[in-house]
């Protein structure tokens, strides 16, 4: 088993943390996992992305040119990764910010208005967590409970107060996908 995820969005949309969270959860699940970031020249703004590979075998490359799954939070990311996803792969789209639709027919598209759903649970800043809830519901490689545990374990101390809203965000994302049927 080897799963590959690219998370991509503007700096500040929390894609790095999102990837790390998934990585923590995978580690706790006893799997091999790698996380690796990549940035543009901008310090803030610009597009950043990270890649997470999860496997039950030692992982060779932590970088993948054609990921199985891409999770995109803004238009430039969508434009970049739509064509790169492996056939039969998945592209998860933050449809609150990306109006374009996926035109490829050989991959699955998961549209989640993550930013709007996050606003619903209380803060646009948890759009990334909403998306993770949605993603792991559509593609259940890791139990969402693991992510919750990882949040508990790895959220920096001064952010512990945000635990509850993160849990709600996970739930909202899951719920959204479940509701889609």
């Amino acid at each position, binding site marked *: 088993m080897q799963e590959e995820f690219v998370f991509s969005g503007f700096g500040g949309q929390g894609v790095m943390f999102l990837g790390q969270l998934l990585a*923590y959860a995978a580690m706790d699940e006893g799997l091999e996992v*790698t996380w690796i970031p990549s940035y543009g020249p901008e310090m803030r703004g610009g597009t*950043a992305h990270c890649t997470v590979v999860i496997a039950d075998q030692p992982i*060779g490359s932590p*970088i993948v040119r054609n990921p199985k799954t891409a999770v995109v939070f803004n238009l430039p990311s969508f434009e970049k990764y739509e064509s790169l996803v492996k056939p039969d792969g998945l592209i998860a789209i933050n449809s609150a910010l990306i109006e374009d639709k996926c035109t490829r027919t050989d991959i699955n598209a998961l549209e989640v208005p993550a930013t709007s759903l996050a606003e619903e649970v209380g803060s646009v800043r948890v759009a990334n967590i909403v998306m993770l809830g949605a993603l792991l519901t559509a593609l259940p490689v890791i139990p969402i409970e693991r992510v919750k545990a990882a949040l508990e374990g790895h959220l*920096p101390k001064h952010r512990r107060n945000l635990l509850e809203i993160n849990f709600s965000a996970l739930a909202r994302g899951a719920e959204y996908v479940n509701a889609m049927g």
Partner: protein
Amino acid sequence: MPVDKDVGVNDTMAKQMLKGNIAIAEAALRAGLEAYFGYPITPQTELLEHLSKRMVDEGRVFLQAESEVAAINMVYGAASTGARVMTSSSSPGISLMQEGMSYIAGSELPVVIVDVMRGGPGLGNILPAQGDYFQVTRSAGHGDFHPIVLAPASVQEAIDFTVLAFDLAEKYRHMVIIAADGQIGQMMEPAELPEMKPINKVRPDWALTGANGRGKRIITSIYLSGEEMETFNQKIQDRLVEIKLNEQRWAELYTDDCVLLVIGYGTAGRIARSAVEAAREKGLKVGLLRPQTLYPFPDDRISELADYTEGCLVVEMNAGQMVDDVRLAVGGQIPVSFYGRMGGIVPLPDEILEAIEDTYEKLTIHTPK
């Protein structure tokens, strides 16, 4: 260019997700690092940042120098007092350290230098590369010497090699370079850290501590007369022979029956592993040798394997540097091919697989003859 700001370390020795740079920093600290001097440069900076907090908290010496030139000379000074000392940088910064490194070699001081290589030449970019293989193995400064060079391929190995680096440095009174690349520095993987060690207060018998009730000690790299300088050079060469004898390290896979031997180190070696696995799945008799020491290069094992292998494929993230060492090791016994990506591009398993298939095909065409 931004760095991840939220990657900490737990006190625990259990497995945790660790970024390579931070893993090296923390491993050095736990190995009893007494002093660190460095200068920020991507993709190595988290190493310095981590130590800026941890060393101070542990009451040890951390100083951000005004430049890499200053940093290596601070290391030179601290090493002269017998302290466990380290610096870290990336390619351009390592170039600036060449003179200081040569002085350290000429003064036989045990220091550890971490080079998290990036794309070059010049300012280049901050992507992972191995373009400085020659610089670290061949000429880490002017004059006849070679540092010991360790090349980790995973975060765990980065940790283990950091601990090993200090031991080797002190065992041989020799400089050790940990040659990582941007990928090792930037990626996170689960890994285990070593136990915390206090700093060693016992000073070796050559260390500068003040000539208190004993004769004076001198640390210098000058030998004005050619005869003395040659004797000193011979001493270094003898030590290098000893190091070559004792310290060649590598990992290997499927080498008992391989027709084609793939050789790669660090990130390239790690990725080659996936390609080799894939090739085996396709039924190709391919093996892998991943040098863990670039100096001493695992000549002996490679030359041994060359006896019952039909060809070699060297994979590097550069225009072909270690491939010279492989050629020297096999000494014309078997053909040596090369697959390289440059400029910060990391080769992917499928590209390497393709290179393997290409090479393999040519080999098996030749074999029947």
